[in-house]
């Protein structure tokens, strides 16, 4: 076979494979993703049964009972807050005022955290915001 034609066929096959893989990547990422929400966004738009990644700061005054935890998460800049009931591993740096990310589902007026989904800021990055 003409080497030039051979190279073109190889390039065509490689590009087709790359396009198919990229399409799979795009499709699965959109279908598997969970929406990130702040407390105020969650209060406005959360639907029952859907999971969301809630991000915000822990309001001081939470209560730990064994491995379950009831706490409120507020917007970074204050304002709205939501009540979360969570069960599972509580990360060491968890504390009032710390930033957390937790996967939640709406259950009536409160939100239930997915088991072991609570994560807190890495302890090396607690620098306070400049100018706030």
């Amino acid at each position, binding site marked *: 076979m003409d080497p030039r034609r051979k190279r073109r066929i190889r390039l065509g096959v490689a590009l087709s494979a790359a396009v198919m893989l990229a399409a799979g990547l795009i499709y699965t*990422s959109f279908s*598997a993703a969970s929406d990130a929400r702040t407390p105020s966004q969650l209060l406005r738009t959360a639907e029952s049964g859907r999971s969301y990644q809630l991000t915000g700061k822990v309001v001081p005054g939470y*209560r730990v009972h064994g491995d379950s935890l009831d706490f409120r998460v507020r917007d970074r800049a204050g304002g709205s807050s939501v009540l979360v009931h969570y069960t599972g*591993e509580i990360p*060491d740096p968890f504390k*009032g005022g710390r*930033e957390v990310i937790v996967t939640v589902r709406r259950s009536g007026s409160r939100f239930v955290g997915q088991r072991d989904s609570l*994560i807190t800021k890495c302890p*090396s990055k607690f620098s306070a915001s*400049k100018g706030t």
Partner: protein
Amino acid sequence: MTLGRACLFLALAIAPIGAIASIYGARTGRREWVAVGRRSVYALAAVLTVAFAVLESAFLRSDFSFEVVTTHSSIATPFFYKAAAMWSSQEGSLLLWMWLLSLWSSLVLFLTRRSLRELAPYATAVLLGFATFFGALVVFMANPFQLLDPAPSDGTGLQPLLRHPSMMIHPPMLYSGYTLFTVPFAFAVAALITRRTDAAWIRATRRFGLAAWTFLGIGILLGARWSWSELGWGGYWAWDPVENAALMPWLAGTAFLHSFMVQEKRGLLKLWNVCLVLGAGILAILGTFLVRSGILQSIHAFGGSTLGKPFLGFIALLVLGSVALVMSRRDDLRSPEARSYSPLSRESIFLMNNVLLVGLCFVIFWGTFFPLISEAVTGNKASVGPPWFDRYTVPLAIGLVFFSGLGPLLAWRKTTLAGARRSLQGPALFALVVVVLLIVLGVPAGKWTALALFGGAAFAIGSVVQELWRGVSVRRAQAAESPPVALVSIVRRNRRRYGGYIVHVGIALLFVGVGASAAFQHVRDVRLSPGQTARVGGYDVHYVRATSSVGPEKVSLGAVLDVSKGGKHVSTLRTTRGYYPSSDPTAGPVGQYFDGDSTTEVGLKAGLRRDIWTAVQPDIGAMQKMVDGIDKRFPLAQGDTQRFLLTAVSQRYVVAPPPAVFRLIVSPMVEWIWLGGIVLGLGALIAIWPPPRAQRRHVVAPSWSARLGRELSRA
């Protein structure tokens, strides 16, 4: 103005002046200006060493007139951690970044002071360009020498979770990796500017690329090790954006370290190599940017950082500049031998390995930046979790391990089918035996990803052993040496090759550890009272008794656990949770300890077969009434009285402990990950180590005579 601040201003003046001098010297051919540029790098390193020493000394002396010392250290912080506290701050870590950059830049320019005379001035300018950017950041936006007046009598202390030996070396390792990636980047830019796209720039910077790869890899592993043995969540990798940001340049580095060889041996992949090196350099800056921008939700991102915009601008400049430069030099980057490519050759395997590595890098990049992509497309920020990453990275990792075994078995240019069959049959048979043996020993055939990973790793290790065996046999036939001496001889004579093979063994061990611990891990969260037992992964974990202690800095509540299997004692583990006082002035003398930071001390029995990992979470909610009562009765208790009250609470916990929650994990072969890291580091060290003097003379001589000839012809 402090000495440290003055040094930073001086550094910010030296860096751009040196860069301009280098470019002017290169454009006009005036060597004295080129020398000014090179000496500027040395001067920058000297000035930044002084600045670094001033800040480090402030930490060691607990000089709280420095804001950064006050917010990240205290008088009670142990000396060892005072030394490491500097890089737990944003300002200190940026100074560390810049200092390391200046040291590595000085080293590469010193080593190439008599070679690469056309390229070095432009590379110097690029390295000083990086230094200018970071200098501007520490001078104008993140001043590590900010003073407090009046100085407080004590600081807030180093965050308790950071008090782990790994933290002493984990950040410097990562930053060394990031900064070393700028060296090949700078020389690639210089090669493109000067149109000297042959392999000379690769030969000069290959060791720096390898060192970058090694430091970054060890840094990543140290972070994982710290997470496993110190943090109470029971994992070593979470696909967090900042973790991913460190992994991406490492993957790009792995790719170019292999494709460099193809260019050196065959003159192929010039364009690919330049793109990979530029990409790795930009990804290294991107890693630093992600930590400081707050653009993505990451547990490792600095809170409230204002450095995102300058970093974004700098990265945009690097990307646009790199693309423009590559496009303008595409004719110089065409490989002359592009048509002579055999699929059954080492270069083809390296290319496949590169495609997989770049694919892996792209998948991680996509997943990491998906929140921004989804926001741009749908208007909603969404993110993908570990299962999505695992779906793509696991098959790619299996392919990579397999190709890492295949590469050494094939010859350059072309291998005949018969030759390939002869080389492959030993390692392939070994891999097959391992997989069959694992199935016979009880590994379910349904765990095909783990089996494929183990088979791939066995194949990679088998191919290295076969290559070493062949090398030793040839050496013994030539020099009549004993097998161990022959092994040392062949490694000494070809450090790059055999060092690389040892790295392959390290990677294979590491993948075995990751595969086994991910596929066969047993996790249980249980609530136990003393005397109760829980079973996990075939082990019985018995809660013997509660423990407590009151130290000068914290109150610890914990548990003694007895681990047995089939009635036989395996180990006694002690796990505790330490409670540090909060700085809230309204909290009571006892309650402040339970409102502050807390850290888990993991009870770990590590072994080559499996790790037994335990962490306790005492139910402090059950003690709240008692704590509140004491705080109400003794609101002003201090010193000995406060200690007495804390001791009373902790003893009460021991006498009548409420049920505690335990996370119990039995995870096979986690130690293989750290063992793989050690082997990888050893192999990389062998590959980086300069060749014996006699070989070096042999290699250097032609380039000397070539340069002499070139310069004579110009004269």
